[in-house]
């Protein structure tokens, strides 16, 4: 049994409010994509808003009504990679610029959490901020250079927050 799972956060600024026709295809695909994630090997958990279906009701920045957040936990980097890039999710990714603004700074971060831990929005945004300010590190990294799961003796340092 692994001691750590992989957490993931990504944020994206939608080009129009969710009820705008421009976002219709994106909104229509959400239930299917979320079901696909939940059915994928290695899926552990995904963040949802009070509605419970998805996280589109969450706004990680109080001053930005168009900034959406996605946060989930997976058994491994490979499990997340397989879902993101080797499933029907890839089709949605290919259309990302129809719905989301071009990001001007890193918009996705990965980090390891103890099994059972569920990140909060604040925690996820802290990891993303860390990546933006300090670049790749075990605290927050990307698919480009995945860091291995911590081994037991050093685990505390990464999980004290």
């Amino acid at each position, binding site marked *: 049994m692994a001691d750590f799972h992989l957490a993931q956060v990504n944020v994206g600024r939608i080009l129009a409010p969710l009820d705008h026709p421009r976002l219709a295809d994106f909104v229509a695909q959400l239930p299917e994509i979320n079901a696909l994630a939940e059915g994928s090997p290695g899926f552990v958990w995904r963040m949802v808003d009070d509605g419970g279906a998805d996280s589109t009701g969450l706004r990680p920045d109080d001053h930005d009504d168009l900034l959406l957040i996605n946060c989930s936990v997976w058994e491994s980097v490979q499990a997340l990679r397989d879902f*993101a*890039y*080797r*499933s*029907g999710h*890839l*089709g949605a*990714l*290919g*259309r*990302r*610029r*129809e719905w989301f*603004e*071009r*990001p001007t700074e890193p918009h996705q971060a990965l980090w390891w959490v103890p099994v059972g831990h569920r990140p909060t929005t604040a925690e996820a945004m802290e990891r993303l901020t860390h990546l933006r300010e300090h670049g790749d590190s075990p605290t927050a990294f990307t698919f480009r250079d995945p860091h291995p799961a911590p081994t037991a003796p050093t685990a505390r340092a990464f999980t004290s927050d």
Partner: protein
Amino acid sequence: MTSEDDVFEAVGVLGDPVRRRLYQHVAGAPGPVGREGAAAAVGVSRSLAAFHLDKLVEAGLLAVDFQRLSGRSGPGAGRPAKLYQRAPGERAVSLPPRAYAAAAELLADVVERAGLDRELQAAARTAAAVEGEALGEDVDPVAALRSRGYEPYWDEELPGEGAPGGRVLRLHNCPFHALADRFPALVCGMNLALIEGLLPGCAGGADWTAVMDPPAEGCCVALKSKTNSP
């Protein structure tokens, strides 16, 4: 990394036409191929096929996979069959040396950072449509994709995906593999647009649809035909 001399040696092994056809058959098959199957596909004897297949393994172009086709194991299960499949890795030769892959990676990085996915897809669709119009009248989507290196094969559709017993055309090879691995959203989106753009120019292409449906290996695009699925 494979050194340049190794690449030349490997490519030189393909100089023999029978050997080349055996390589093409095995490389294009969605799963491992036995000696009998490869020999029959190319129209040579089993022993000649075995000789050439083993030369291809020596050159590092094919890999061997031993399987007991009966599914049994242990004593009495019989000798495992020697099966062949394409070896991992890529080999490219360019005379004189060219570095298109390095240029492609730089360009893709800039296009990704600039958020030009939609512009790239539109350009891909247009370029492929021009190619499609130049296709011969009898070139169907399967032939068009085969000639572009996609290595198409028919696969059973999973239950619940459409008509029961329907078939889906999958593509064993991703022509943009290394680039797609590094920029999946950008490059796979471009690839889907390329295939969509090509279809209308193919014989019967109007009845075909292409969707993103990645299998574990190979190209992420799968195609269906309303009229032409065998």
